[in-house]
């Protein structure tokens, strides 16, 4: 019997189709994994099931949802709860300063009636602390971990907090489906083992589980059936027994051997321009650990990985924006920790993924944006009067006009404000800014994010051409694996904070899929 039936669901954000005619059935008591790469539409699908407001705000969706055979209309998260759909999100919804049982029963407390509540209604009932604590301890025991109901949450590890989140869902009596959104990303090995047992137990009691992930190992280990999403399309639903890991990987990444771009001829150059040794860094909740890699002169090397696995940190480390442990050498010189000035002086130019925040000064003119950095670091565009270095605006504008021509930036004149340009042209200004520094290594992060297809192609080909002409080494960090396969020679795969492997772009796509999605125990 199907607990949930999703029929022909489509969803668009603006013009981009995120989900395209998706149908999935979830059986009662099964563990159903939904597997997909970044941007495959996993999260959107879950948002629809949970009635997240963002779906309504962006124009709703097409298609139908049936719960136990009845057509339902889920508009708010509360509707979803009433229909018996619970969700444990990737980002924790835990209040750190209160105890475990308070978190578990927040806004769903067990209460006792009293005189006042008889008059004024349910909101005035007394809270039954004791039975809630007992219930919490019971649930925690059933999960086989030793979290006490009276522990304060900020002392717990992130994995343990996830258990609380799970406890909150399974305590509900009429729950039918629990959705886990990338639950294991923060788990230790032991925790993820326990997690496996827990969801197995839950499913045995008749509750279905939807399990969203990009990790192949877990899918194979935990789930009964697997649905693969790619680019918003359903690539098929399979029984766990009838499918291999390699096949899943291929379905997830897609076969794209046909569309190979005319890469530059392989330069037979063994000269190492840059080498990272045991680099460890953290930024927010993203981090990289112990990364060692050598980069050769003149190559275009890609850095791939699912979001949150350290891609963003990688760029910021090279650009000198954040501190790190370990050593980075460029042309034999050791970089100073978190010193962007020193990094740029030694020939690393960084185009940040945060284009509007870090990369550009939107209220400033194009020439200011392009030339300020080069003026400061390389003493370009300077007019000396006496011993004082004045900025030479005339030369800046002249250089900018050349950039506008070379990179084909669409604008009125060099003095136009960057904020008035389109996304693609802004990105070109960012690249021009980096190129003005005469770098020997160019690090570009998410250079095509939020840019239409034509501009994307234009920018990437420009980069490849520059690399060809000037022998520039390019490190291309991107969430779009296909793009990297198309333009890069080697690709560094980051997974679970660590370097999972360096693959040549000619390798079959299933290999990429495996490297990106395999769990950490494999290595």
């Amino acid at each position, binding site marked *: 019997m199907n607990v949930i039936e999703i029929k022909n669901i489509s969803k668009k954000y603006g013009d981009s189709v995120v989900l395209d005619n998706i149908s999935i059935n979830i059986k009662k008591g099964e563990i159903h994994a939904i597997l997909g790469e970044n941007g495959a539409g996993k999260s959107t699908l879950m948002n629809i099931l949970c009635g997240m407001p963002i779906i309504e705000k962006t124009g709703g969706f097409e298609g139908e949802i049936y719960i136990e055979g009845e057509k339902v209309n889920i508009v708010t998260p509360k509707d979803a709860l009433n229909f018996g759909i619970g969700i444990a999100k990737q980002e924790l919804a835990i209040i750190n300063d209160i105890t475990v049982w308070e978190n578990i029963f927040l806004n769903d407390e067990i209460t006792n009636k009293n005189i006042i509540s008889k008059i004024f209604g349910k909101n005035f009932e007394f809270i039954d602390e004791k039975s809630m604590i007992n219930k919490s301890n019971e649930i925690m025991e059933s999960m086989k971990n030793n979290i006490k109901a009276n522990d304060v949450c900020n002392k717990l590890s992130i994995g343990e907090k996830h258990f609380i989140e799970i406890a909150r869902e399974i305590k509900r009596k009429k729950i039918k489906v629990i959705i886990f959104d990338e639950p294991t990303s923060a788990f230790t090995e032991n925790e993820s083992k326990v997690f496996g047992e827990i969801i197995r137990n839950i499913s045995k009691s008749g509750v279905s589980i939807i399990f969203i992930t990009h990790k192949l190992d877990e899918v194979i280990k935990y789930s009964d059936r697997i649905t693969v999403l790619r680019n918003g399309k359903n690539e098929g639903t399979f029984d766990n027994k009838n499918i291999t890991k390699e096949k899943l990987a291929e379905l997830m990444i897609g076969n794209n051997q046909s569309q190979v771009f005319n890469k530059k001829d392989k330069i037979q150059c063994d000269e190492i321009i840059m080498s990272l040794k045991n680099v460890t860094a953290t930024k927010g909740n993203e981090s990289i650990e112990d990364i060692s890699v050598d980069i050769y002169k003149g190559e275009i090397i890609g850095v791939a990985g699912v979001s949150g696995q350290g891609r963003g940190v990688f760029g910021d480390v090279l*650009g*000198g*924006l954040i501190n790190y442990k370990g050593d980075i050498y460029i042309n034999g010189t050791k970089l100073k920790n978190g*010193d*962007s*000035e020193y*990094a*740029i*002086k030694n020939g690393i130019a*960084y185009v*940040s993924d*945060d284009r509007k*925040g*870090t*990369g*550009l*000064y*939107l*209220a*400033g003119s194009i020439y200011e944006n392009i030339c*300020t*950095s080069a*003026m*400061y*670091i390389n*003493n370009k565009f*300077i007019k000396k009067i006496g011993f*004082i*270095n*004045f*900025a030479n605006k005339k030369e800046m504008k002249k250089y900018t006009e050349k950039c506008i021509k070379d990179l084909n930036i669409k604008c009125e004149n060099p*003095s136009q404000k960057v*904020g008035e340009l389109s996304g693609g042209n802004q990105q070109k200004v960012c690249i021009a*800014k980096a190129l003005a520094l005469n770098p020997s290594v160019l690090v570009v992060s998410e250079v095509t994010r939020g840019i239409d297809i034509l501009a994307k192609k234009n920018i990437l080909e420009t980069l490849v051409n520059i690399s060809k002409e000037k022998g520039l080494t390019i490190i291309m960090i991107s969430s779009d694996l296909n793009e990297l396969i198309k333009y890069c020679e080697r690709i560094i795969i980051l997974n679970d904070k660590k370097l999972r492997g360096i693959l040549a772009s000619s390798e079959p796509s299933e290999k990429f899929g495996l490297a990106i999605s395999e769990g950490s125990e494999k290595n």
Partner: protein
Amino acid sequence: MTQKNNKKENMFAIFSGVIIIIIACVLFKKGTLIDFLNRVGMNGILVLSMVPTIICGVGLNFGISIGILCGLFGGVLSIEIGLTGILSFVFAVFVGIILSAITGILYGKLLNGIKGDEMTVGTYVGFSMVSLMSIAWVILPFKSPDMVWTIGGKGLRTTISLENSFGGVLGVFGSIFIFILLCILLYGFLHTKTGIAMKTAGIKPKYALNCGIKPDKYRILGVMISNIFGAIGILVYSSGYGFLQLYQAPLMMPFAAVAGVLIGGATIKKASVLNALLGVCIFQFLMTVSTPFINSIFSDSSLSDSVRMVISYGVVLFALVRQGGRRIK
């Protein structure tokens, strides 16, 4: 609207403003124009001292009292060793610059630790420094009979006459000349490599870091320049006023300076030399003209002073409230 049109309109506004001020001064009362120019010269540098901190991203420098105290100390020292005339002024400025450069760097380092709350912290740093120096004025072993209390012979007086040292040595046009000179220097500085780096650091620290500019370094530089201007400013002010005011006098001086630069069109995040120039002119014009005017309405009271307070603090309030306005960066 294109930039050129904008500039034209600005120039027109300034030009007509100048004409209005001159006509008003001439029509109003004899000597008002000189009085006005005198006030501009006296207060101009203090107002100008707000510009570097705003540009480097620290915001309005409510802690300018520190620079002021350094300047006062220079002045006191100059009297103590018995210098007279222009020499005593130069010496006072020299000592003031050195002290304020040192304290400016320390104060800048402090402000780097509390990013986001510079203005609140700055106000209290200023207050506490003024109080600390109040103790110092009493216990420091100054001997000059021009300055110490006549009874007891210990501790400095609250107001020290500059009759025998640098009082009035600059004259009205001397102080205006120094003001204009500093304006030009600051304007020039903002167009040098270092100046542009400082501007960039102030506009958007993240962007600056990406350009290879270390924002913290330039914030300290901005605070230092502001502090030095504060020291020079108070000496020019005292010279024009004829007295050095110690103890609680520097307590509220930052507010007048802040009001001045804000009334000239600066905001907490954006300021230029022109803002300071315009601001001090408008502010002092209001003072010069309003005081006798209000006095003639409420003849037997000191209401003019209250009205002045309303204007200056009202402007500060207005600008602080307005800072939430949307602006792309």
